[in-house]
């Protein structure tokens, strides 16, 4: 351990009714994860992911799954009231189904609560994206900005808010462009082992630093591209999970938070991501974790911009404030290190499938815990997602194999 590790002390713990049962992930499926999937409609893409998830979980969606949750946004879909398209491809016709208009991890949190409540035993969560179907992505982002104070400025690309955060973060912590480039190069290379990582490559720190800027201080390697994808995850109560699988992965806690209204960029705490911190604290409380130090085996965290990986680790209490870049230097976040981070390659090598991004991170952590839990002293993962610019919403899940 090369740097100071944080010790987050949580105040009054949230009262989770002790009799409430545990919730597990019992299966997952995915489809797409390519820059374009022109041969399938979004419905067909979701169906393929759902088929794989139900086979993986050993359940029949028409008999065994009690309810379905879909995560999507109308403007991403190009369909008003897109919720209505949600049930059919996941097997939810005439069954309880609804949409959470947010990140897939918020859908996972919803399913977690539905099962905790005792009303449902098995719930499927779906999220998907087809960015390649959108011609005017800039126009869609524009509609997310305040119509009176931001849009009329015609600044063209709301991703600029990420650049503002990056500059503020670097100035506050002393992290340099080299540290950001180290994150990008590491994630691009780790993705080479992941079949879902369309954008992985043998990229070096020099490649990253030598490339043209996209949004200062980040070059094209440091801003995650888009990907077409669908993810379906099946959750179950402890009783159902024990029946279905020998190696359930437990959802130990969930949390979510929004800092300020989207588009109200003036109110954001620049160089920080308070929503990520709040979501993390909520998830830790639910999981009964007083401090994440030494309690987490690995993490899949936000990295759609290179600096966000470092900031995420600090906001989640996995690195001390301003310490993440120092821990990066000493190899703490590398595979086999103190806390391996984004071994999947992160969104820098997988891409951004809009609201499916968080659910995809949960998928990666789930597969790792299911297959390789014995690699870790503590078989537990922190999964964290920020909904990306221009939002200030984040969601976190704590998954564990014990």
């Amino acid at each position, binding site marked *: 351990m090369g740097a100071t590790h944080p010790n987050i002390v949580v105040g009054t713990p949230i009262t989770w009714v002790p009799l409430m049962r545990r919730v597990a992930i019992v299966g997952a499926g995915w489809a797409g994860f390519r820059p374009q*999937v*022109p*041969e*399938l*409609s*979004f*419905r*067909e893409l979701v*169906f393929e992911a*759902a*088929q794989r998830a*139900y086979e993986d979980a050993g359940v*029949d*969606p*028409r008999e065994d799954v009690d309810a379905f949750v879909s995560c999507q946004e109308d*403007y991403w879909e*190009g369909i008003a009231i897109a919720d209505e398209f949600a*049930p*059919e*491809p996941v*097997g939810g*016709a005439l069954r309880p189904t609804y949409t959470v208009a947010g990140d897939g991890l918020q859908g996972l949190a919803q399913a977690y609560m539905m099962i905790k409540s005792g009303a449902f035993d098995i719930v499927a969560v779906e999220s998907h994206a*087809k960015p*390649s*179907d*959108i*011609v*005017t992505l*800039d*126009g*869609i982002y*524009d*509609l997310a900005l305040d*119509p*009176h104070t931001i*849009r*009329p400025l015609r600044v063209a690309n709301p991703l600029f808010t990420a650049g503002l955060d990056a500059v503020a973060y670097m100035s506050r912590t002393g992290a340099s462009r080299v540290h950001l480039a180290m994150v990008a190069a590491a994630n691009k290379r780790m993705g080479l082992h992941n079949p879902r990582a369309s954008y992985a490559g043998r990229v070096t720190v020099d490649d990253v630093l030598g490339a043209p800027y996209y949004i200062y201080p980040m070059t094209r390697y440091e801003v995650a591209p888009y990907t077409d994808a669908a993810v379906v995850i099946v959750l179950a109560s402890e009783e159902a999970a024990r029946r279905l699988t020998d190696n359930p992965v437990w959802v130990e806690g969930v949390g979510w938070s929004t800092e300020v209204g989207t588009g109200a960029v003036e109110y954001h705490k620049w160089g920080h991501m308070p929503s990520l911190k709040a979501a993390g604290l909520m998830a830790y409380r639910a999981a009964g974790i007083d401090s994440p130090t030494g309690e987490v085996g690995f993490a899949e965290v936000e990295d759609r911009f290179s600096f966000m990986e470092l900031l995420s680790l600090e906001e989640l209490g996995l690195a001390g404030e301003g310490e993440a870049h120092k821990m990066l230097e000493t190899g703490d976040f590398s595979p086999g290190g103190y806390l391996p981070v984004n071994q999947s390659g992160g969104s820098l090598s997988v891409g951004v499938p809009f609201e499916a991004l968080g659910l995809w991170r949960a998928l990666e952590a789930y597969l790792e815990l299911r297959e390789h839990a014995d690699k870790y002293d503590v078989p537990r993962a922190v999964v964290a997602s920020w909904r990306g610019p221009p939002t200030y919403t984040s969601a976190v899940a704590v998954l564990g194999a014990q």
Partner: protein
Amino acid sequence: MSSRSGRPQPGWVNPPGHYLKRDEMYSLVGLVEYPPRAKYLFSAGQAQSRFLMGLKEGKILGTRCPRCGRVYVPPRMYCEYCHTHTLEWVELPGTGVIHTAVISYIGTFRERRKEPVIVGVIQLDAPGYTPGGYEFAGLFHRLCGVTPEDVMSGRAIGMRVKPRWRPPEERRGDINDIECFEPIEG
């Protein structure tokens, strides 16, 4: 609630304030008119692509579920009841009966149309498939040669119809390659 003239309709108590003319309203500070720039190219996918190409050839194609036998028009690559792939394609004759029909005299903003529009849901003949429930192979489309009186009297329900195709050179692989469904004479 105000009428076109800007005056409250009879029977409504006058709320406070005064009614703005159109120009007055659009000159208000803070009122921003903003047309969205939202353009998409929807991938039709496996099922609908083949269906649309079929229309160009004057054919109505559907898919059949190997498990329950349901025929899907418009086609799906999966059966939503069995959650299984529908791998078998079938060509339907195109004929069918009007399942339900409606006459609309108004537009979306409740404005009165010059001519009413008659549309319906057509249950298509699907040889070898007997619908077991309320769902069937069918299309929503315009009805021509069906009068408002046919609809209001109930005569339209069950009426035998067939597609009126556009001439082959005008077809584009589009649902409008069928102009409408019309009654089969005799």
